[in-house]
């Protein structure tokens, strides 16, 4: 097979293509498609979270994608993580609707339109937007993927050990190795720079998969756009000697701890140190190692270290509730959605947080000593383990990449030319977009949104190149699976106990060598109803599938059992072929005798016995198998965008750019939302110009219908889309502007500045304003503060006024940035003004740190106050209207500051609307922010397909982030509209009406809002298109009326019965 494909395609992953197109060898064809039809291809560099998301989104939109990663596998940094904050779960495998990814890595490897090119680097990009020619250099395919089955014999004989820097969390490995348990493609790879070509692995490989003479090759692809989503580099703690890294094994990095805590890590998830396998009981986390260092390599904030430290600290406390876990920090920057609440939870678990600067970590024999500077005094504390929260740098190879892409590097050597501006994903070269950690250190949801924004721009380029941005005709859609629109399935065929069953056992050499395949085949032949049982050479190869189909043709059967590897793989491989020979969907049962028998019970004879049991269970299950069907319904064209602020306008325009009709509804008489009252952004950009530009764009676009002074008075889910009534808000107007249907809804309803809490408004009448009011005063003065009324000498800003407390637990994120903006502005215009910012943590993540630094340099005084000592506003004396009383945590003193202005940063509240939410089948949290499908992996989507969110409707956002999220939401919406048809799953839930008493428990437990009660008949009904086959209803229903097709109780009980016999 690899010979057949070998030339010129090197490491293009043929596994994914083989899987999808089974017997037809599509991989080669695909590359040709990419070349011939250059209008519909995009190249994505970097296979981490950002690159995978961009690739999947584009592929779902019908665009060919070449996904290039310089490492031997895709997945990036995420594959090293045990859990992710703030849900402490592997975010990618949550119960998410498979509209996109169940697990992005698996989806990427499977998708027919994605060509995965690992061990590859972009060498050059010629041409211009819409017509790029990209040269990709690929390493030789030393281990042929089509042949390797990861048996590991090569690694066992390899004599070469390769060292890797420990701080990256990676472990030493052999020259031939498997890069990680979750790596994709899941095969062994050769480190060609370390390999001494001794040839032992070639001899050891039972399948002849290794070719040490493989040559690197170049591939050229033609694409319309390029997305660069490189990952992050790791700051090397060895450069900071004072933290003791490298001197003792008791100082490690956060990533090393992550690996230690991971079940797939070097210790199997046990936290042990040293030869004595000591378990550390006192653990210190030291924050900002490398980061926020003005003089050093990383002057910015690395943005995610606070959160990963909190996550790891919590895990330690969960594992060892008695352990002492202290986090030494400068500011805890928990300012993403749900992060503050996560931080509070950590405190609740007993993790101690100490604000200070750590001056050094000294190694002892069995301990380490952490020296802490607070208020000039230094104290020293003993720990068993110190964890350095090391920051991030631009990734290795960023210079080569920027050269190859022909773009300049931006801030601090990262990619991007306008990262802090209003077109953050753009570069100076049109058609090339940037996202991911290689642009600015960022967390997963941020990376997903940035890459979504890139996908939008790339899709727009693809459509523009194709000639017309007319959405549905532009690009041929991938062929959907065969659809049976089924009503009642008549089984006019054999009685269940007369059906003919065929058992096919995959030989899969040498994986199955531990099993007695002949015995299994012989045994299977003797079972009731089994009319044919045979061995198949390799089901994952063309010849295997051919042998299977030939076997079925020769001796026709009704139902098929395959004993082989994981059902996930097998089913995809053979599905299409089986349907061609007349096997219905649902009539295939897979017994996984490789992962469940051959592998875990190697050298154990009972493995065959277990395999027999699994096959027996499969036979029993298939006896009860019923045909499964899938339904399809059209998705209406058109989009409804609710909210005409920055995010809403951008989303509307983005959708129109992709060729979709949009209704944009804004309740105010003018477009712009909250941005109307903002003159400039923190980075000095002109926000009003942006508002004017956006509103001009949406008003000019013929595809956008703008409804100002309007609201959506009613909305409901109908068939594949939504029906909404748009009502004028103008006085006296009762008639609706019309009822319309649309296929997608984007919520961009923003938020509002919260009311100042009573504690601040009671005693003092004048001189107390909110941050937004203060900004308005500055704006009115037209930046010439001489015009400000009265004598302003002292301004005191109070952060978290009414945020981050029991009543409003979330962090509003933007208030710190707004305070910095106004403080810098004040200081710029009137340097002699004293500006104080009283805060609990200054939250200026990522490159925003620079503005914090700037403010400090300009002489803004930052005073940290503790959570339980909120500053007090007292009536002023000595001619100042306000006296601010604050306890300075750093000094340990109570201060009194007479002020002309006390400026309250009051935070932002969401705009959650109960009617809207219930009409759309979505939720919002206690602060009014809409609850997305998955806080990590799907920040712009909801569990209700077709509804998307952007801007502050999801979480408080600055202008730049609002723009990014708007584009990210728009492209997700466009994917759905372009698909134009919605498929139900095959194995949905079903109601056995005769048994149903209409108690409604299933309705309550359904996470997808797919069940409801028929009020007349008093039974539950299922919307098959919403149902995702999770089975919650079947568990909840006591009467057996809720039935999960394919997993009927009868069938499972029967299989269990066999298992125990």
């Amino acid at each position, binding site marked *: 097979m690899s010979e057949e494909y070998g030339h010129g395609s090197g490491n293009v992953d043929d596994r994914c293509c083989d899987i999808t197109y089974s017997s037809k060898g599509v991989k080669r064809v695909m590359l040709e498609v990419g070349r011939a039809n250059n209008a519909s291809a995009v190249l994505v560099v970097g296979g981490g979270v950002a690159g995978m998301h961009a690739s999947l989104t584009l592929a779902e939109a019908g665009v060919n994608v070449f996904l290039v990663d310089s490492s031997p596998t895709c997945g990036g940094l995420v594959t090293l993580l045990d859990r992710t904050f703030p849900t402490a779960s592997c975010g990618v495998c949550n119960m998410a609707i498979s509209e996109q990814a169940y697990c992005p890595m698996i989806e990427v490897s499977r998708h027919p339109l994605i060509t995965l090119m690992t061990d590859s680097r972009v060498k050059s990009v010629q041409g211009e937007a819409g017509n790029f020619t990209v040269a990709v250099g690929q390493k030789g395919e030393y281990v042929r993927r089509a042949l390797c089955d990861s048996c590991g014999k090569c690694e066992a004989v390899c004599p070469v050990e390769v060292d890797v820097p420990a701080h990256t969390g990676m472990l030493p490995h052999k020259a031939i190795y498997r890069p990680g348990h979750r790596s994709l493609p899941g095969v062994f790879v050769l480190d060609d720079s370390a390999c001494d070509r001794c040839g032992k692995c070639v001899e050891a490989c039972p399948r002849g998969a290794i070719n040490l003479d493989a040559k690197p090759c170049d591939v050229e692809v033609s694409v319309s756009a390029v997305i660069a989503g490189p990952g992050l580099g790791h700051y090397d703690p060895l450069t900071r000697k004072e933290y003791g890294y490298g001197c003792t094994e008791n100082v490690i990095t956060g990533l090393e701890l992550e690996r230690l805590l991971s079940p797939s890590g070097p210790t199997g998830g046990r936290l042990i140190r040293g030869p004595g396998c000591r378990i550390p009981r006192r653990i210190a986390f030291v924050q900002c190692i490398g980061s926020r260092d003005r003089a050093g390599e990383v002057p910015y904030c690395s943005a995610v270290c606070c959160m990963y430290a909190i996550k790891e600290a919590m895990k330690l406390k*969960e594992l060892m509730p008695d352990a002492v876990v202290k986090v030494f920090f400068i500011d805890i920057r928990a300012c993403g959605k749900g992060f503050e609440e996560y931080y509070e939870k950590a405190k609740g678990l007993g993790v101690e947080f100490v604000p200070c600067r750590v001056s050094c970590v000294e190694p002892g024999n069995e301990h380490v000593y952490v020296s802490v500077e607070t208020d000039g005094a230094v104290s020293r504390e003993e720990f068993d383990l110190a964890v350095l929260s090391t920051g991030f740098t631009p990734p290795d190879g960023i210079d080569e990449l920027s050269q190859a892409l022909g773009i300049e590097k931006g801030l601090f050597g990262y990619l991007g030319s306008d990262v802090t501006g209003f077109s953050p994903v753009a570069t100076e070269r049109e058609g090339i977009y940037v996202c991911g950690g290689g642009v600015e250190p960022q967390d997963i949801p941020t990376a997903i949104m940035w890459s979504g924004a890139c996908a939008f721009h790339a899709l727009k380029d693809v459509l523009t190149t194709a000639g017309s941005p007319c959405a549905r005709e532009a690009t041929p859609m991938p062929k959907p699976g065969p659809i049976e629109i089924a009503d009642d399935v008549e089984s006019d065929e054999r009685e269940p106990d007369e059906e003919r069953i065929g058992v096919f056992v995959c030989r899969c050499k040498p994986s199955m060598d531990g099993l007695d395949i002949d015995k299994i085949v012989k045994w299977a032949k003797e079972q*009731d109803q089994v009319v044919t049982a045979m061995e198949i050479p390799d089901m994952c190869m063309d010849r295997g599938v051919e042998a299977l189909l030939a076997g079925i043709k020769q001796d026709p059967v009704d139902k098929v059992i395959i004993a082989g590897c994981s059902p996930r793989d097998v089913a995809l491989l053979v599905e299409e072929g089986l349907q061609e020979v007349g096997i219905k969907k649902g009539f295939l049962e897979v017994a996984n005798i490789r992962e469940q028998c051959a592998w875990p019970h190697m050298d154990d004879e009972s493995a065959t016995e277990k395999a027999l049991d699994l096959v027996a269970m499969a036979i029993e299950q298939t006896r009860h198998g019923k045909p499964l069907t899938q339904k399809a319904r059209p998705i209406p064209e058109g989009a409804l965008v609710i909210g005409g602020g920055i995010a809403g306008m951008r989303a509307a325009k983005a959708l129109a750019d992709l060729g979709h009709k949009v209704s944009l509804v804004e309740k105010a008489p003018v477009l712009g939302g909250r941005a109307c009252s903002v003159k400039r952004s923190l980075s000095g950009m002109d926000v009003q110009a942006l508002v004017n530009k956006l509103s001009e764009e949406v008003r000019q676009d013929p595809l956008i219908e703008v409804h100002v002074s309007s609201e959506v008075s009613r909305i409901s889910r109908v068939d594949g889309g939504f029906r909404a009534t748009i009502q004028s808000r103008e006085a006296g107007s009762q008639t609706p502007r019309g009822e319309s249907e649309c296929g997608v809804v984007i919520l961009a309803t923003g938020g509002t500045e919260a009311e100042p809490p009573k504690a601040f408004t009671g005693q003092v009448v004048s001189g107390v304003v909110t941050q937004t009011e203060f900004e308005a005063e500055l704006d009115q003065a037209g930046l010439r503060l001489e015009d400000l009324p009265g004598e302003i000498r002292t301004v005191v800003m109070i952060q978290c006024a009414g945020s981050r407390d029991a009543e409003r637990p979330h962090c509003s994120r933007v208030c710190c940035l707004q305070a910095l903006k106004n403080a810098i502005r004040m200081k710029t215009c009137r340097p002699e003004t004293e500006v104080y910012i009283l805060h609990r943590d200054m939250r200026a993540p990522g490159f925003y740190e620079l503005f914090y630094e700037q403010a400090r340099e300009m002489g803004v005084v930052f005073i940290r106050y503790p959570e339980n000592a909120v500053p007090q506003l007292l009536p002023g004396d000595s001619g100042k209207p306000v006296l601010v009383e604050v306890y300075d945590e750093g000094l340990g003193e109570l201060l009194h500051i007479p002020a002309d202005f006390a400026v309250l940063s009051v935070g932002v509240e969401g705009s959650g609307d109960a009617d809207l939410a219930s009409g759309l089948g979505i939720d919002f949290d206690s602060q009014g922010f809409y609850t997305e499908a998955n806080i990590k992996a799907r920040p712009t989507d909801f569990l209700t397909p077709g509804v998307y969110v952007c801007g502050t409707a999801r979480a408080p956002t600055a202008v730049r982030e609002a723009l990014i999220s708007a584009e990210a939401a728009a492209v997700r919406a466009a994917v759905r509209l372009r698909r134009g048809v919605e498929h139900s799953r095959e194995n949905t839930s079903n109601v056995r009406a*005769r*048994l*149903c*008493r*209409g*108690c*409604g*428990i299933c309705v*309550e*437990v359904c996470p997808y809002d797919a069940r409801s*009660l028929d009020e007349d008949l*008093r039974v539950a009904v299922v919307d098959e298109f919403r149902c995702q086959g999770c089975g919650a209803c079947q568990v*909840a229903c*006591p*009467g*057996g*009326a809720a039935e999960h097709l394919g997993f*009927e*109780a*009868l069938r499972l*009980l*029967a299989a269990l*019965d066999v298992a*125990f*016999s």
Partner: protein
Amino acid sequence: MNNLVIPVGEEGRARALGEFLAKVLELGVVDAMVVPVMPVPGVITYLMAKDPELIRKRAEPFARVMPVNGASPVARAVSKKPRGRIGALLKPCEIRALVELVKLKQAEADNLLVIGIDCVGTVDRDEYKEAYSDVGRLQFRDACKVCLNPCPPDIAFPGINIGHIGLDDESGLLVSLSPELDPGIAGVIEELGFENGDALAGKRQSALATLKEERDKAYREFFEKARAELDGEGIGGVAKLLAACTGCRNCRVACPVCYCRECIFDGDVFDYETRQILGRAGRKGGLKIPGETLLYHLTRMNHMSLSCVACGMCEDACPVNIKLFPLFAGVAGRTQGLLQYVPGRSQEDQLPFTTFREEELEPR
């Protein structure tokens, strides 16, 4: 809470309360009234009365027997919202079961006037038939001996409660009107001219406190003993306890909160084919038939234990006298405690199943 006193005359408290209930029906507060009656000596059934005279003459509101948990027939009667209003005189455990059925959408609470009545306990129905005129010498059922809820739950329904614990005939019966009771209904009852009963309410409260203390102790001892008998034997102990089960499902029919149309164990899921039954028999050497009796009870426990109101009807219904009450109510007490759920307390408390949150699985 508006407290009033119904005086008890020479004809006794049953007639006094009967008169009150009849009045309520007569004055049109309700269009029908469900009350326990004695159609033949020693036998108590529920009657849905339209004629007030039937109540006056035959109501047996104090009968110390519970042939059926009244929640079942009442729920069936109001499975759809009735046109007029229906009143029902129910014991505490019946009311609590009815609340669970309302939550499970098996009964409509609208247009239902629940009249709760204190209950110190009930006796075995066969013994009652023999000795109903001298019921005082009979022992309470186990479920009643350890019942922690001798008075109707306050906030379950906006209705009327009849209190008599700690009150003798001389002091009369206490009528308490819920603050949420329909003002129209409250007005009619207030106009009947009963005296204020606040003093009586105090007297009843102190009697209840004493009773509660006794019951708490009895409850602890009873279930400690029951657990001790089972513990150490694991599922084997449970299997032994249930050995005599014939699979008749009487317990689930008698259970007021078992609401399935057809028990899953009677349906096709457990319709084993002959070859399967033979296979199992062969495996073990022999197979108890009808099978799945242990699994049936465990499944029923799994389905219903959170809503179990510990009325003990399951045990009464068992034709082979299996001591089901300690097992089911014991497990229910613990599962309910774990999820801090009190079945029948209020219609507002959501069924734990419907409020499940992922973080509940996190270690505590």
